[in-house]
C-alpha cells in the first residue's frame, strides 16, 4: 500500500490543480508591458522591441513596449519600481539604472527609485564603449592620447550625452584609471555628442560601437581603445584599456530586463525561461545583428553578479565626480 502513496498524491493533485491553477499558475493570462524609459529609436527601445516580439512568440501572450520617457529615464524607471509586482509590468533598463540613484544621493535628493526596487531577469546585451577621436587628430593610439593628456591636463576636451550620463561615466572611469584630466563638454544626448566631435568642437568621445562604426569605416573617426573585457568583434584591431594596463577602465552600455522587486518567484522563473528562449529565436538574432549589437545573455546569479559589480563601479565613479561646482 505504501508504494501507492505517490500515485494517490499525484491523483489528488491532478484533481485539485485545475481549481488552483487559474489563480496561481496561469501566468501570463493578460498582455505584458515592457517599459522602455527612453524615446523610440534609442538603444533601450530598439532592444525592447525585438525582445517583446520574441517573448510574445514564446509565451503565446501579447507583449507590448511602452515608451515612458523623461528625466534621463528616471520617469519610466520610477514608474516600474512602483508598479504592482505581478510580472505584467517589466522594465528594459540600460546602465544608467545604477547611476541615477547615486546622482540623487550626491545632491541630497529624494531618490526617484533605488536599485533594490528591481528584480533582475536577464541581461540582453552589453556593448563596451570605445574611445574615438577625429581621423585627422594627432593621436594614433590610446597610449599617445593618454600621454598627451598627462602633459596637458584639462586641455583635451570630450563630449558626452549629458552629465552623469553613460558616456560621461565611461570617460570619468578612464580619467581616474589613467590618472588624467580631460575637459568635459556635456551635450543633450548621444546624437548631439557625436555631432560635436564630427564638427570638430571637441577632441574625443566615448561611444557605443554601433553608432560610430559607419563613421570609422568612412574614415571620419578613429577608434583608439575599448572599455570592454575583450575586444569589440567588429573592431578586432582596437585594443582594450585592460590590455593597455588600465583594468579599472571597464564600462559597458548594457540592456537588461527587470521586474519590480516582490514579483513572485514562479513568475520570475517563467520570465527567465521565456527570455532565454526569446534570445535564441532566429528573428531576435537577426534584429540584433542589424543593430550591430552582439547578444550578451546572462541571467540568475550570473546577471546579479554582473549587475552588482557594474553598479558598484558606477556608484564609485559618480562619487568621484561629485557635485560639479565643488571642484572649482
Amino acid at each position: 500500500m505504501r508504494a501507492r502513496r505517490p500515485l494517490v498524491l499525484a491523483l489528488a493533485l491532478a484533481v485539485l490543480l485545475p481549481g488552483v491553477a487559474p489563480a496561481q499558475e496561469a501566468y501570463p493570462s493578460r498582455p505584458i508591458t515592457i517599459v522602455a524609459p527612453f524615446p523610440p529609436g534609442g538603444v533601450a527601445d530598439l532592444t525592447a522591441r525585438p525582445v517583446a516580439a520574441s517573448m510574445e512568440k514564446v509565451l503565446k501572450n501579447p507583449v507590448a513596449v511602452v515608451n515612458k520617457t523623461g528625466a534621463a529615464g528616471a520617469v519610466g524607471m520610477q514608474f516600474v519600481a512602483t508598479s504592482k509586482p505581478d510580472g505584467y509590468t517589466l522594465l528594459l533598463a540600460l546602465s544608467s539604472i545604477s547611476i541615477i540613484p547615486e546622482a540623487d544621493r550626491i545632491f541630497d535628493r529624494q531618490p526617484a527609485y533605488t536599485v533594490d526596487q528591481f528584480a533582475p531577469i536577464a541581461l540582453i546585451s552589453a556593448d563596451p564603449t570605445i574611445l574615438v577621436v577625429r581621423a585627422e587628430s594627432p593621436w594614433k593610439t590610446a597610449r599617445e592620447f593618454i600621454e598627451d593628456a598627462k602633459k596637458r591636463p584639462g586641455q583635451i576636451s570630450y563630449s558626452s550625452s549629458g552629465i552623469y550620463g553613460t558616456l560621461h561615466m565611461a570617460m570619468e572611469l578612464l580619467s581616474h584609471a589613467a590618472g588624467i584630466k580631460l575637459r568635459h563638454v556635456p551635450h543633450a544626448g548621444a546624437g548631439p555628442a557625436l555631432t560635436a566631435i564630427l564638427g570638430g568642437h571637441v577632441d574625443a568621445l566615448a561611444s557605443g560601437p554601433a553608432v560610430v562604426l559607419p563613421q570609422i569605416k568612412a574614415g571620419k573617426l578613429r577608434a583608439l581603445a575599448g572599455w570592454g573585457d575583450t575586444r569589440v568583434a567588429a573592431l578586432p584591431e582596437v585594443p582594450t584599456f585592460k590590455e593597455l594596463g588600465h583594468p579599472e577602465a571597464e564600462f559597458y552600455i548594457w540592456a537588461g530586463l527587470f521586474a519590480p522587486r516582490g514579483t513572485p518567484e514562479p513568475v520570475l522563473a517563467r520570465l527567465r525561461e521565456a527570455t532565454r528562449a526569446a534570445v535564441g529565436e532566429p528573428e531576435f538574432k537577426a534584429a540584433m545583428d542589424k543593430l550591430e549589437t552582439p547578444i550578451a545573455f546572462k541571467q540568475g546569479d550570473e546577471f546579479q553578479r554582473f549587475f552588482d559589480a557594474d553598479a558598484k563601479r558606477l556608484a564609485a565613479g559618480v562619487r568621484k565626480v561629485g557635485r560639479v561646482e565643488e571642484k572649482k
Partner: protein
Amino acid sequence: MLETLGNLGLGFSVALSPSILLYAFLGCLVGTLVGVLPGVGPLAGISLLLPATFGLDATRAIVMLAGIYYGAMYGGSTTSILMRIPGEAASVMTCIDGYAMARQGRGGAALAIAAVGSYVAGTVSVVGLMLLAPPLATFALRFGPPEYVALLLLGLFVLAYMSSGSMLKSLAMAAFGLLLGMVGIDQMSGYFRFAYGVVELGDGLGVVPVAVGLFGVAEILSTAGQGTPPQVVKPRLRELLPSRTEWRESAAPIGRGTVLGFLIGILPGSAHIISSFVSYAVEKRLSRHPERFGHGAVAGVAGPESANNSATSGAMVPMLALGVPSGPIPAVMLAAMMVHGVSPGPLLIQQQPALFWGFVASMYVGNVVLLILNLPLVGLFVNILRVPYPYLYPAILVFSMLGVYAVNGSVVDVWIMLIMGVLGWVLRKLDFETAPVVLGLVLAPMIELSLRQSLAMSDGHYGIFVQRPIAAALLGVALLLVILNLLAFVRRRLDWRARLALAEKGEETS
C-alpha cells in the same frame, strides 16, 4: 549635373513604384492627421509610429516616416489658423495672423496659402537637398556651440518685431518665457531647478503644452467669458480661395521663407523651431504695412508656414549626407534605418543610391500628394467653423488634452497646459501678447546650454566667440542691428510701433 539627373531618374523609378507610392501617401495622410491633432507634432507622430514601420523594408520605412514628418508640418497650420491652437511648436506664429484671417472670414484663403506655400517650400528645398547635400552638410557641422550662441542672440532680435502693441509688454513677456525656460535639470551640473520634487519637471516645461495652453485654451476661456457668443463664421465657397491681392502679397514671403527655413533647418540641433519665428520677423521688417501684422496679414502666414516646411528638408541634409543625427527627428529616422540594417553614415549615398535617390524623389512626390490632399481638405476643415461654439469648444479642449497627453504619456504635461491656459487668459485680459513667452521658452534652454558649452570648450574664456569666424560674423551682425535700431530710435523717437500703439489708444478712448 547629368549624373544627378540620372540618379534622379533612378530615384523616381523607385519612388513611383506602386508600393513606395502607397507608403508615401500613407505617410502624408497620417502626418496630416497627426499635424491637425493639437499638440501632437512631427516628433511625437514619428516616434509613435516608428514601431509600425519595423515590418517594412528600409526604403519604404524611411519614405513613410518622411511623409509623416512633412505631412505633420502641413497639417500643423490647420488648427492654428482655424482655432488658434498650434498643432506643433513651429506653427505658433501662424496662430497670430492665420487666426485673425479666419476671424475675418478668410480662413479658407489662409489655409490655401499655407498649403501652397508649404508645397513650394517643400519642393524647392528638396532641390536644395539634392544638389547641395554633401558640401552643405560639412559646412553645417562647423556650427558648434559658440556659433549657436551668436545665432540665438540674433534670434532674440526677432522679439523686437513680434509685438504689434507695447514693446515694454512684449519684452516683459519674453523675459517671463526665458524664466520658464529655466525649469528643469541643469544640463551642466545635474541640478534640478524649480522641479519641486516632480520628476517629470526635470525635462523642463515642454513647448507644446505651454503653446497649446497659452493660445488654444486661453482662446476658449476668453470666448466662454464673453457675454454674447461671437458670431459663427460661415465660410462661403467663393471665399475659400485667396484673392489676387492675397496671392501677390504672399509670393515674396513664400520665397524668402523657403530659403530661410532651409538654411536654418540644416544647422544641427533644434534650430528649425525658430525658423518660423525668424521668418515672421523678417516679413514684418520688410513689409510696407507692418501695422497689419497681428491683424490678419497674409505674409504672416505665408512666410512662417513656408519656412517650417523648408526646414524639414534642411534637417535631412546632415542626416542623409553624413549620417549625423542633427536633431531629434532625424535621430528617430536614423534609428529606423539602423533597424533595417542600413548603417547611416557618410557612405550612405554611395552605398545605398536607391534608398537616397528614392527618398529624394519621394519627397517631390510627397509634396504633390500633400497639395492634392490638402487643398480639397481646406473646404472640409473650414466647415469646422460652422459648428456652434458650445459643441466645438469642449471638443477642442478634449482633443488638446488627448494630444498633449499622448506626446509623453504624462499627466504633468496636461496640468502644464491647463495652468498655462488660465495664465494665458489672464494675460489676454491684461492685454499682453503670449507669442513672446513661447519664443522665450524655446530660446532660453538653447542659449543657456550652448553658452555654457562654449565656455566649457574654452575653459571659461569669452574670447571663443570672437576667435571663431562664423560666430564673430553673426555677433557683428547682431551688434550692427542694435546700433541701427538705436540710431533710428534717437533720430525719430517714434517708430511705427509707437505710432501704432498711440493710434490704438486713440481708438480705444474715442
